[in-house]
């Protein structure tokens, strides 16, 4: 991928981080840590030319499917779907509010009111990979070229169903349907709800587990290095004969100093002042330069004003 394209992805991911913080601060609850660890991966997947979709036809039968098995990080997905144009920016701020279709965890809506880009209900950890296998089989049976991507958390991989699914994907159908159209992506941020994964229930040897079950494993050493992510996804798409898992080593809360690698920020939304500081850090502006930056950048200034107004509510 050309340097200019990588720069575009990096700039998009920065904007997405701002929007994630903005949404969560408005909502007053939610999961910033995992949303920030996953967003670079999602940005590359959706805007690096890997996931195939048609912005004008969300239900294009040959589209690739994406299942967010770690459903609590759905703010990251909402922001991405907003960028595609499936939803408006204003609507994003209804996250977690009464009457909003932006549920706290992914909800695909009922027939007739389906939510473009949300392919299944998730959020009870461990369930998404099985759904993705069903979809990968379905598109194979229909002879479509579609791929199915499924993002899991590493803490989520403590759930038994993940390994039921992992065991079945390379073997299901007795070889009639080779699911090399299935790609799992693990956001390996090493923190779960209560604490660090290693202090709760360690997963290592993690890659070896997937390999033993028959998956092709690709590790991305830095899941925030856009070049490395793109390279990893490129290799994933070249795998044939068996499903592939991309294990991306990430930092929970990436981009915000006080959230990074801190289990406290798994499931707590920033307060308005914290949200504003987060946005400043994400944009890489020093404290002393902030007011000047805001004067020069009305779009960000508007968001900051909006969050300041929440303080007085």
């Amino acid at each position, binding site marked *: 991928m050309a340097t200019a394209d990588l720069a575009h992805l990096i700039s998009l991911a920065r904007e997405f981080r701002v929007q994630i913080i903005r949404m969560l601060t408005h909502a007053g609850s939610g999961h910033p840590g995992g949303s920030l660890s996953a967003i670079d991966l999602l940005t590359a997947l959706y805007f690096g030319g890997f996931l195939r979709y048609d912005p004008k036809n969300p239900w294009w039968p040959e589209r690739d*499917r994406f299942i967010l098995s770690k459903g609590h990080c759905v703010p990251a997905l909402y922001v991405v779907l907003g960028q595609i144009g499936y939803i408006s920016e204003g609507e994003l701020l209804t996250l977690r509010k009464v009457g909003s279709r932006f549920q706290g965890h992914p*909800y*695909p*809506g*009922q*027939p007739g009111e389906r939510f473009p880009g949300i*392919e*299944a*209900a*998730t*959020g*009870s950890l*461990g*369930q*998404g*990979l*099985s*759904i*993705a*296998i*069903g*979809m*990968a*089989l*379905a*598109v194979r*049976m*229909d002879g479509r070229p579609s791929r199915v991507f499924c993002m899991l958390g590493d803490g989520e991989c403590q759930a*038994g*169903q993940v390994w*039921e*699914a992992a*065991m*079945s994907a390379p073997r*299901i*159908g007795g070889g*009639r349907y080779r699911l090399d159209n299935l790609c799992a992506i693990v956001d390996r941020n090493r923190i779960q709800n209560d604490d660090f994964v290693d202090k709760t229930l360690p997963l290592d040897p993690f890659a070896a587990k997937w390999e033993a079950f028959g998956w092709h494993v690709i590790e991305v050493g830095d899941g925030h290095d856009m070049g490395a992510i793109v390279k990893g996804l490129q290799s994933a798409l070249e795998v044939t004969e068996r499903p592939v898992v991309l294990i991306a080593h990430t930092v929970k809360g990436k981009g915000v100093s006080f959230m990074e690698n801190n289990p406290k920020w798994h499931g707590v939304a920033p307060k308005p002042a914290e949200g504003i500081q987060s946005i400043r850090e994400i944009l890489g502006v020093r404290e002393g330069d902030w007011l000047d930056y805001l004067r020069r950048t009305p779009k960000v200034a508007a968001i900051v004003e909006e969050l300041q107004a929440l303080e007085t509510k």
Partner: protein
Amino acid sequence: MPAKATRVAFGEAILELAAKNKRIVVVNADLGKSTMTQKFAEVYPDRAFNVGVAEANLIGIGAGLALSGWIPFICTFACFVIGRFETIRLSISYSHANVKIVGTHTGLGIGEDGYSQMGMEDLTLARALPNLAIIQPADEVETKQAVAYAAEHDGPVYLRFTRQALEPVSPTGYTFQFGKGTVLREGTDVTILGTGGPLFNCLQAADRLAAEGIRAEVINISTLKPLDEELILRSGGKTGHVVTVEDHTIRGGLGGAVAELLSEARPVPLKRLGVQGFGESGDPRGLYAKHGLDPDGIARSVMKFLKI
């Protein structure tokens, strides 16, 4: 027509349907021999999957197939599949996935294998999910029509089948209607609402009651959700006494559904017959007798209820 297990009738029905409906898929979890779908797998190998002893994965794969336009029948013992309630709740129900959940080996009627294999609380759990339809046919004729209906129904369905053979109870020329009960025998003194396995015994109990001068109305409630409220209220209003009979716990199944309905809409004295505690090993007939679901037991309970 000879007695036939509804699981056997299901296996025949799905095979016939699959010839016409090319979107039907069958997924098993190592119990294809028992859910009577091995023939399907032989005839339609491209539309048959076996995920091994992994029921949560069974449910999720079913959901994924359905969300991509296929019509999966996911098949295993009722207690094993509904036991993964929370997976059904999210992956199928809340995802509005058009999955047909097939639960066989329900109730005391499975016999010697004992409680661990008996679907005993499945109706209670399945009833809690807002969009999950529940059908428990009572004989071969009804099973074949109910399975055909389920394949066409737009949305998730739970189909509950028996291991043991069931005597035919449906009237000649019977047509299954989703959401409708069927009056198998008219009466004026007591309404017996039966579902699935014990229905034939309900009819026999009605004969014994007739000998005592009690005219029992026997109704087959094969669709448990949505319930045929109108028929139940009309019959209960007419007879003034309602008895429910099911091979399932008395908590939350047919008896529970009818209790909810009557107590809100038209309070009528109600007696729930079914399983009070756990199930156990034994021959099916012996178990039905021990738990009061044989013709004598049902008749005795009805007379006691009517204070005769």
